[in-house]
């Protein structure tokens, strides 16, 4: 069983036309897989995760097919998606820790959410308590208001809530960026624990922090300007990436042990293209050190060049041929 996304296109409606924020994503996440989704701001990763669970204006569904466990997800229909949300597909959105109603006690909030999904609170309570133990939260939090919890505690609470119904797919959007380093590690490890205990079957972890992905993800997918650039097992992406963008991205990351005076790192000159009228051909060609004529004319398809290693780059296809 898996998540199969086929040529998904979601645009943003603006006054001046459609912004092609997500322009044809095709990938699969298998059961038990933690896939990291990385890229810079504007690459479309949040669009992708948001469109899978709550596709609302100004986002517009343009085309493509999404299948979760052999069942098609009607992501363009907000009403029909209600049956899937929280039970089969769930999300921990960015700033989730600020999304809790400040004047509701947490236990009351949980019971209200469960009620709206037609789930009985009392029968779920024992499991809820077990999960709280797992994330090292005392049962007293159910009687507290959100303001009484620290940032990390709120994040863990939201994690428990989002996974309470054992969804098949869980998406975590930048859940560690606002946390301290020590809490980050705990929260990231909790995600892995949830997968190991089969509370969730598939995980999509969206972040710009690739080092976290190195620690917990099985595979990493890199996005650029609304398109998929490369997807491969984690160690491949970090140690032997093949897409020029991935290579430049990985080599621009400072790590402990790297000093300016010894090895000066470089960034990627230029800016991502505007997606209102995207450039023809490969969207990375303007900043790519190895771009050639074909890159200007034709868009490279996202193709599997080796088992489990997908890439969209004409140069790399040449090497393989």
């Amino acid at each position, binding site marked *: 069983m898996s998540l199969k996304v086929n040529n998904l296109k979601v645009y943003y409606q603006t006054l001046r036309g459609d912004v092609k924020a997500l322009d044809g994503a095709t990938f699969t996440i298998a059961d038990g897989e933690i896939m990291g989704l990385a890229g810079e701001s504007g690459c479309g990763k949040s669009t992708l995760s948001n469109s899978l669970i709550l596709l609302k204006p100004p986002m517009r569904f343009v085309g493509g097919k999404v299948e979760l466990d052999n069942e098609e997800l009607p992501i363009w229909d907000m009403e029909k998606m209600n049956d899937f949300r929280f039970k089969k597909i769930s999300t921990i959105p960015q700033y989730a820790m600020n999304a809790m109603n400040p004047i509701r006690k947490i236990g009351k909030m949980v019971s209200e959410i469960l009620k709206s999904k037609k789930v009985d609170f009392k029968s779920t309570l024992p499991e809820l308590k077990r999960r709280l133990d797992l994330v090292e939260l005392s049962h007293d939090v159910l009687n507290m208001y959100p303001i009484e919890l620290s940032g990390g505690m709120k994040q863990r609470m939201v994690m428990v809530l989002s996974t309470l119904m054992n969804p098949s797919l869980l998406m975590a959007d930048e859940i560690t960026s606002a946390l301290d380093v020590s809490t980050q590690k705990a929260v990231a490890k909790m995600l892995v624990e949830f997968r190991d205990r089969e509370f969730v079957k598939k995980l999509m972890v969206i972040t710009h922090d690739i080092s976290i992905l190195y620690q917990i993800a099985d595979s990493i997918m890199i996005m650029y300007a609304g398109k998929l650039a490369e997807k491969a097992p984690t160690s491949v992406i970090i140690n032997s990436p093949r897409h020029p963008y991935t290579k430049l991205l990985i080599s621009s990351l400072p790590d402990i042990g790297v000093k300016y005076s010894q090895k000066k790192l470089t960034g990627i000159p230029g800016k991502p293209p*505007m997606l209102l009228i995207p450039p023809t051909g490969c969207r990375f060609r303007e900043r790519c050190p190895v771009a050639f004529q074909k890159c200007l004319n034709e868009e490279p398809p996202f193709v599997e060049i080796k088992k489990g290693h997908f890439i969209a780059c004409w140069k790399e296809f040449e090497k393989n041929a």
Partner: protein
Amino acid sequence: MTKPKKRINEFLYFALKNKRLRVGLSVVLFFLILALVGPLLTDYKWDDYVGPAYHPPSYEYWFGTTTFGQDVFTQFILGLKASFLVGIIGGGIGTLIGVLVGFTAGYHGGMIDEFLNMLTNIVIVIPTLAILLIISVYLKVRGVLIESIFIGFTAWPWAARAIRAQTFSLRSRDFVDLARISGIRPLKIMFTEIAPNMMSYLLMTFILQFGGAILIAATLDFIGLGPTNAISLGLMMNLAVLWGALPLGMWWWFIPPGAAIAAIVGALYLTNVGLDEVFNPKLRKL
């Protein structure tokens, strides 16, 4: 690549496109023009005895006549003018005081804020009706101006609170800190950095004060605490009720003024909602 439209054009585009803004502004403008042009349509004064009493609307007397034979239409037009005057003067004074107090309190914080807060709360709590009753005993002759001033000086706290909250939030933004480490003095920062950001807020505050002033004036006039030497919409309603328009079924005397007040104030609030959508890009529907 398309050049980004100028900000002012973008603003006008959304302003004109916004239904609420269009409807609200049209209604207000309609009554305003009526108030300005109206006096030319009538030769009478509001308290002239022009014709038969209790007369329903007819060709000669468009809005009929009162129990004394006065022309209701004339009263209506002049009353409109009075209401707009109160709105502008009373609303203007209220906004001015509110902005000064709120701005100062919000920017400086500390003891100044505490003091101004206390002042604001005292003014809110003062029973304005009682004070007005006392004033009316001493001032036998009151005009629209006095009424406007009174309203302005008692309605400002609401504006002050809103402005203070907005100033507080702007003050803690990084660009204010940047201005401080550029050596700019606090007063200058208030006017050059914070005020421009609040323009839209100030406009909306004024509109609310304007509408509020008209409403308060109508209420005061209705209970007889309004101007003694002029007619206003509220006074019309007061007189109508006082002189038995209700049991006599003289709807033409009390319905037009009431409806006009409701329409103007309602339209002003509608305009405000529309303006909010225009100023706040997140509320815009495409």
